């Protein structure tokens, strides 16, 4: 059995991946149907989401059980570390595509729409100015999002949540479980508060500021970037809740708690993306 512990754990055949594939097929077909008003698209999409949730519960549950029963050695732990960092890198690149679109629009395409050529050939009266005036084809007036209201508060909230999470981590390392639990609860609450304020901001934008997804390239980049960020905060908060549940069940040891660390990395990544957003989407 000593030898066994040195071995790299290779899991038994598993039925979870195929459920994941079925889930994504259902979700994709459902979404296609829904977007094109064919049949019961929403129902198919919802069915896909349910299968995905079943798969995530089963799969992560299996991983947690395997971990708790001591099947993972140091090497498996290293594998998790490599994979989580590169997964986060792939997420960074996903955001990079949208930041790239924003930079291109602000630095090149919108100024160019007011160039002499465009004035002569297409839109004689267009004077580009980010973000108020970006649409030469004309658009309902709207009010751009201010940086120094809710967004600044949200920045403080997310930065604080990063600190509380690190404080929880210190508690875990020092085996002060109370501090760990309190830190996690605070982090989750701050995350939820952030999401609430973000939702409030969206409602405000739609109802009072006439700022919508369709408000030219400004509205498109604003809502897509902050929307995908919000989605990632939701995922991060969900993962934190799972971690809290595991902490309450007595999981994680001071010297072995990569599940916690992975979620903490993810949370800090979400934090950093927000700082980028705050600077280039809201402020500048």
């Amino acid at each position, binding site marked *: 059995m000593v030898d066994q512990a040195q071995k790299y754990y290779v899991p038994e*055949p598993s039925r979870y991946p195929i459920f994941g594939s079925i889930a994504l097929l259902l979700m994709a077909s459902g979404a296609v149907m829904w977007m094109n008003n064919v049949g019961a698209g929403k129902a198919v999409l919802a069915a896909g989401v349910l299968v995905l949730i079943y798969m995530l519960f089963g799969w992560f549950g299996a991983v947690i059980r395997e971990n708790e029963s001591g099947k993972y050695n140091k090497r498996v732990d290293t594998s998790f570390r490599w994979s989580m960092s590169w997964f986060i890198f792939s997420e960074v*690149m996903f955001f990079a595509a949208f930041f790239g679109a924003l930079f291109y629009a602000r630095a090149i395409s919108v100024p160019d729409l007011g160039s002499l050529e465009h004035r002569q050939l297409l839109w004689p009266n267009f004077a580009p100015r980010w973000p108020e005036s970006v649409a030469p084809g004309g658009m309902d007036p709207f009010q751009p999002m201010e940086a120094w209201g809710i967004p600044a508060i949200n920045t403080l909230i997310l930065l604080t949540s990063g600190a509380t999470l690190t404080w929880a981590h210190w508690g875990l390392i020092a085996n002060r479980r109370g501090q760990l639990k309190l830190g996690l609860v605070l982090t989750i609450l701050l995350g939820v508060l952030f999401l609430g304020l973000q939702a409030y901001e969206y409602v405000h934008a739609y109802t009072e500021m006439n700022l919508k997804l369709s408000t030219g390239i400004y509205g498109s980049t604003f*809502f897509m970037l902050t929307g995908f960020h919000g989605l990632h905060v939701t995922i991060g908060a969900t993962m934190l809740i799972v971690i809290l549940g595991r902490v309450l069940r007595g999981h994680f040891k001071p010297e072995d708690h990569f599940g916690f660390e992975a979620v903490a990395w993810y949370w800090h990544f979400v934090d950093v993306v927000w700082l980028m957003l705050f600077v280039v989407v809201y402020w500048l």
Partner: protein
Amino acid sequence: MEATHVHGAEHAHEHHPSGIMRWITTTNHKDIGTLYLWFSLIMFFTGGVMALVIRAELFQPGLQVTEPEFYNQLVTMHGLVMVFGAIMPAFVGFANWQIPLMIGAPDMAFARMNNWSFWLLPPAALLLIGSFFVPGGATAAGWTLYAPLSVQMGVGMDMAIFAVHIMGISSIMGAINIITTVLNMRAPGMTLMKMPLFCWTWLITAYLLIAVMPVLAGAVTMILTDRHFGTHFFNAAYGGDPIIYQHVFWFFGHPEVYIMILPAFGIVSQVIPTFARKPLFGYASMVYATASIAILSFIVWAHHMFVTGMPVAGQLYFMYATMLIAVPTGVKVFNWVATMFKGSMTFETPMLWATGFIFVFTMGGFTGLMLAIAPLDIQLQETYYVVAHFHYVLVAGSLFALFAGTYYWLPKWTGHMYDEKLGKWHFWLSMISFNVAFFPQHFLGLAGMPRRMPDYALQFANFNEVSTIGAMVFGFSQLILLWVVLKAIRGGEKAPAKVWEGAEGLEWTVPSPAPHHTFEEPPVVK
């Protein structure tokens, strides 16, 4: 399913599902590699049929076989199916089979995720191929899915977008798995600079995948929201710009072409030393050249966009940066030639493919250099010259290397020698017909024949006839491969552990066929 009890390796193999469930639930890298390879072969024939319909239409001027709209769908789907369905999964299949064997690992680092990476592909293929049968048919915007055309199309476009998303998820998970396996699962003594070059090229390719597949996902997401949710990324009247799509797409697209060629370099770098019976010349320089190509691939993307409009300074930058890639690629070609220099060479089928690869791939590389020259590219953009160029690098490059690898490792996978005579027929028929099919397309392009058109002016008729004949022979020659593979699976001369006299590496220390589980005790590499 998830056994919670700890059990020894000796009875770990017993309660495995059998039949179809074995393949659906498998966590074995060899099973998953086999699945990948069969999937890519099916997609290769699917995309191949589309290519033959395209060539049939082009046999004569005028419209004979297809409607123009359907022709555009075929061109688009041929590209998407071959790139995402055939070439990329085939290389991942090789990675699955070979990387653990080559570095002395018991399996891939994440065996269950490995299964999911594969099993995401059939749903994606279903969406992609299924889009032919929905109202409006498949997407016809070209494999690049350029906006604004892609913003306007029907249901098939949405299906293609989601197929790309799902294949992207699969690729990212596969890449993370490969990186983790290579960095963390090597046997004791297998240092990075001792690693077979195939593993090196895949490590670097995996980084490319992780860096650019999410960018593609972002690009097609923008199309999706422009189509259905009222965003205006690609609408100039609202401050967007269709060129944003081109930039974001080619930031993915250029590394993507190296994703499809670097593992091919890796396979060729395994095959040539074996049949030259000499170690690979300039191993370290090969590693650095691979890394250089990968890094350069991120800063050259706009050479695909010389005619969409950019400042002269931009054209010059992208032109010179692109030409720079010829340097590390040249290092590779010269190293392969130097490996063969004064070697005691024999030309079994894998070596035929590998040497054939060097000839024809290098020609594709040269036409690539010509296309990199901005003033020339402005003439050649969207002509058959481009079609000839990328088929020389993708068919004669990636695909020929895949064939080399298939013949090279098939005895290890099946336990039987393949039929050498059939293999040689496959090679010579393919090699000759490939050139008959695609070499005339250079002339067509230089003469100005536009690509993605079902009809053409009369003066292009002769070269098109020749090209179609070549393509038909090439297409049907591939059935020989299927025959060879099936024959080797069913029987044939028993293959020894070390199939090739000059072969080096851990995969040749295990029996042929490789047992279901290998290197459960890591070997020690001196």
